[in-house]
């Protein structure tokens, strides 16, 4: 009986489909890029003079390649008050496992609907299909949209809780104190904004018609901002259960929102071609970008970082804006990327950037250097991808 079953298994395995040739070509390219450059040196036999010359040439080439790789990993150049320089684009060393940046407790990235997550506590997910994701403060937990549910996972990989939702979760924002989560669900062609406590209790609807822009929490975790269905940024106060729409017409059709994490109530609002600060009922004069599109915003060391992609595509930049005592924005420096920036996340004194590189997305962690210095970047992840960056979060 067993041998009959074994025969059937063998036959059925032989009928399995073949991989697509295109997939194989991409995989081959990735695999060849991963070959260790230094491996040959360990297995080389005793050197002749001719071989020694060859080795010296190889070492020189290797040093040049290493320098190139370092330059590629640090594919950012910083300039203060100068014209941006374009850095040469080179292939980075492979990093198919997401690395946690120095000093961080966790990092989460969703690319083309798949989640890469690594925390210092040991939780690691690679390529998990999710609809959205967010890290809790200190990266102790991760909340993901999985099917029609919001699911929270604990550090050891245990499912802490799940809450059924009426549709797919498309955006998640975890409050700085970890006690609440705001999330947006797509249902019936509309987006609804909900809030739920960090332990999965007390789910409630905040707004039945919003846009899919990721909500942001104020530093005290008592208010959150989102984009209404009509495109206006709205600040929702949980204590008073009040909604305050931002009336400044420049802020309409906002694409990114982020509260200053320092604890004040200043909210940075970005549209496709402008940024401005809103605090209470007052707004700063907007800073506009004529031929550039905003690809992300975040607060780093008290400065507002704005990622910009030019039209036509040349050197993308991250511009740093200092907030004046009057609440205005003054550019204080810029980083130049060798390739198109697809996303930006700021934490502490670092930036996490998603940069397009051929058919790959590279996730880089970079420091903000002092004036005149070069930004130091670390490659966290490189994945083949179309271009759909969802979550980009470092804690």
């Amino acid at each position, binding site marked *: *009986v*067993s041998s*009959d*079953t*074994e*025969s*059937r*298994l*063998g*036959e*059925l*395995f032989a*009928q*399995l*489909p*073949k*991989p*697509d040739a295109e*997939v*194989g070509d*991409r*995989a*081959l390219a*990735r*695999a*060849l*890029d*991963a*070959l*260790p*450059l*230094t*491996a*040959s040196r*360990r*297995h080389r036999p005793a050197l002749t003079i001719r071989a020694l010359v060859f080795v010296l040439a190889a070492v020189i080439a290797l040093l040049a390649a290493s320098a190139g790789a370092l330059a590629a990993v640090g594919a950012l150049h910083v300039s203060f008050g100068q014209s941006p320089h374009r850095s040469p684009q080179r292939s980075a060393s*492979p990093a*198919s496992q997401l690395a946690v940046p120095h000093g961080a407790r966790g990092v989460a990235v969703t690319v083309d609907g*798949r989640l890469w997550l690594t925390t210092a506590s040991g939780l*690691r*997910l*690679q*390529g*998990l*299909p999710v609809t959205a994701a967010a890290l809790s403060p200190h990266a102790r937990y991760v909340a*993901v949209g*999985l*099917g*029609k*549910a919001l*699911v929270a*996972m604990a550090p050891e*990989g*245990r*499912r802490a809780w*799940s809450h*059924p939702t009426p549709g797919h979760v498309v955006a998640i924002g975890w409050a700085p104190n970890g006690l609440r989560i705001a999330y947006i669900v797509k249902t019936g062609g509309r987006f609804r904004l909900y809030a739920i406590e960090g332990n999965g209790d007390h789910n409630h609807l905040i707004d039945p018609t919003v846009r899919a822009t990721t909500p942001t929490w104020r530093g005290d975790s008592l208010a959150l901002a989102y984009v209404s269905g009509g495109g206006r940024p709205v600040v929702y106060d949980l204590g008073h259960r009040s909604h305050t729409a931002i009336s400044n017409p420049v802020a309409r059709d906002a694409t990114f929102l982020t509260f200053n994490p320092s604890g004040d109530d200043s909210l940075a609002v970005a549209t496709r071609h402008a940024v401005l600060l809103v605090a209470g009922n007052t707004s700063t004069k907007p800073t506009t970008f004529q031929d550039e599109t905003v690809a992300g915003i975040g607060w780093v060391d008290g400065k507002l970082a704005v990622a910009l992609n030019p039209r036509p595509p040349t050197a993308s930049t991250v511009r740093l804006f200092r907030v004046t005592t009057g609440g205005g924005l003054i550019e204080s420096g810029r980083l130049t990327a060798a390739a198109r920036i697809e996303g930006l996340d700021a934490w502490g004194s670092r930036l996490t950037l998603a940069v397009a590189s051929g058919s790959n997305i590279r996730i880089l962690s970079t420091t903000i250097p002092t004036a005149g210095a070069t930004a130091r970047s670390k490659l966290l992840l490189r994945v*083949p991808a179309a271009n759909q960056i969802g979550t980009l979060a470092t804690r």
Partner: protein
Amino acid sequence: MKLGGVRERSDRDLVRAARRGDRDAAAALFRRYWPSAWRVALSVTGRRALADDVAADAFERAFAALDRFDERRPFGPWLHRIVANRCLDLLRAERRLTADHGVEPVGVDSDHRAGDRGLLDALAGLSLERRVVVLLRYGVGMTPKEIAGALDLPVGTVNSRLARSLEQLRETFEGQGVERH
């Protein structure tokens, strides 16, 4: 081994050359094992997209670690071990997330032919641990000893899982009415 008068290089030769930076040798190694690695991934995950990712990731890891590979050992089982473990890691993580509330359970693509579906459905009915052992044995052709080495299991455990899996599969095949032609 000779094929059409051209001597086919052994895995060991290709590995050695690849370690010296010979990209043609590495590519030959890739082409030799890519189909089987992908099929292992497809058989375990049941989904083409995941199989694409897992198999590519496994090759990337294998080539990145080539300088640490013990070339006295066969390359194929080592690679398949990486593939199988990547599948297990991924599916276990997914299972943790989906357990108890049935969200997007591990299933199979719907675009396979009837024969493929029969196998994939049958394999999907096995536990993850048994599924991997079965496909390494009958899909890749590894011996129980090689499987034990690849998965860090006692040979007895491998044999036990194989026997129980075969019994379960026999019942499944009978239930599906899978016939031999």
